[in-house]
């Protein structure tokens, strides 16, 4: 392997590694390259990454080599990251609470509690905060609890034009059941063609069949 390819290979390895990559580890992973050569290539790599048009550099740290964004761009990078609308991330409790609200709306906190079996106040706060749900008045019952429903933001985030576009439970069941392969005893209409187990039929390939009499 020439020096050029060696440098490229080392860069790729350092990029994917989570920990600083030591010369020892490299010597084990990249065979037939003497340590001296590895070290020389690494030095060149570090040097090259300092070029002004590079925003990511390779530094020697904790006895190994690791890739870092250059410090002078940290502010700008952070600004960029902040400007992004991050993908919607939800914890399991929040997701479940949102699911109950989406399907049962408008629904009160105590009702969600009853369905989920756990308290939902913190999940509700998260969802309100992310703007995925809004309050929708109060239920005319004892305690007049607050009603919740999904927001416009919810529709946007989930690519819906209306809540009635949500998959129905029946639709979900059909897909999920098929995925689990629960086809035994199911009516033929819903049964996907299941690969059959053992079969005594001869296997194809070897002998091409003769064209048949029509």
């Amino acid at each position, binding site marked *: 392997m020439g020096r050029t390819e060696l440098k490229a290979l080392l860069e790729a390895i350092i990029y994917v590694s989570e920990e600083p990559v030591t010369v020892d580890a490299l010597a084990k992973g990249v065979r037939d390259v003497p340590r001296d050569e590895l070290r020389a290539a690494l030095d060149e790599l570090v040097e090259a990454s300092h070029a002004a048009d590079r925003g990511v550099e390779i530094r020697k740290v904790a006895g190994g080599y690791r890739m870092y964004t250059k410090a002078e761009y940290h502010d700008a990078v952070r600004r960029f990251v902040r400007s992004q609308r991050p993908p919607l991330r939800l*914890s*399991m409790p929040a997701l*479940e609470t949102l699911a109950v609200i989406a399907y049962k709306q408008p629904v009160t906190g105590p009702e969600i509690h009853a369905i989920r079996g756990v308290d939902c106040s913190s999940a509700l706060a998260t969802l*309100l905060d992310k703007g995925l749900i809004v309050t929708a008045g109060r239920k005319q019952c004892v305690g007049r609890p607050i009603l919740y429903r999904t927001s416009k933001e919810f529709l946007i985030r989930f690519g*819906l034009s209306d809540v009635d576009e949500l998959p129905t439970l029946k639709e*979900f069941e059909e897909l999920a059941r098929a995925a689990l392969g629960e086809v035994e005893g199911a009516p*033929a209409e819903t049964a*996907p063609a299941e690969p059959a187990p053992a079969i005594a039929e001869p296997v194809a390939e070897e002998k091409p069949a003769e064209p048949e009499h029509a």
Partner: protein
Amino acid sequence: METLPSVQLEAYEGPLDLLLELIRKQEIDIFNIPIAQITQQYVEFLHRMEQLNLDIAADFILMAATLIQIKSRMMLPPDPLAGPGESEDPRADLVQRLLEHEKFKSAAQMLQQKQILEQATWSKPDLASFADEKGELVVTLWDLARAFREVLERPPAPSGLEIRKEEITVAEMMEEVRRALRESDSAIPLLELCKRHPTRRGLIVLFLALLELVRLEAVVAVQAELFSPILLRKHKMFDVVFAGATPSEVNEQYN
């Protein structure tokens, strides 16, 4: 039937796959399918599958019916009323479907190749140092439907009072008040906030949070007349206060 082409019965996901294999094995021109022969072979295969107790999907039966129908239409004399070029080959639809199916099979293979190639490269998102993640998942509509079903399937919780530790901090409470006010165009009754925090600690924290907010001139408490409900409303510094102070600063003062 000895002359039946040997094909692996279980390998066919659907009737179109089976038909295509029959056509391919016998080097039949798809644009001139000997329909009687193919129908006979197809039905014979279904019989064999039956004998082997294979689960025959409805789609296979439907195709048998289609083939038999095409066969009988082929035997009819052409429609004398049909103009030139109008009398369609009864096989046309089937051929079209077979071609369409074959087309997507090749497309699937192309996708598979692309994906294998792509798997030989790695991208390492290294966002960790710039954004914090708290075990949250990127979710889709599908996850939402699944979550709902899982909730419904869960055994109901034991009834009875649940005693939980109220952990809300003053800063969090201030944040909650901000949220409540931000979402509401009008003033909010104090009582409504109190109801959300029925525990003793909750009420104390709420009280402290309100004191702080009033002190900072972010919130004003008003009362239309003596003994009428106390209402909370945004005050002149509402936006300024919440744009500045971070929760940890406030927490330090109260904890």
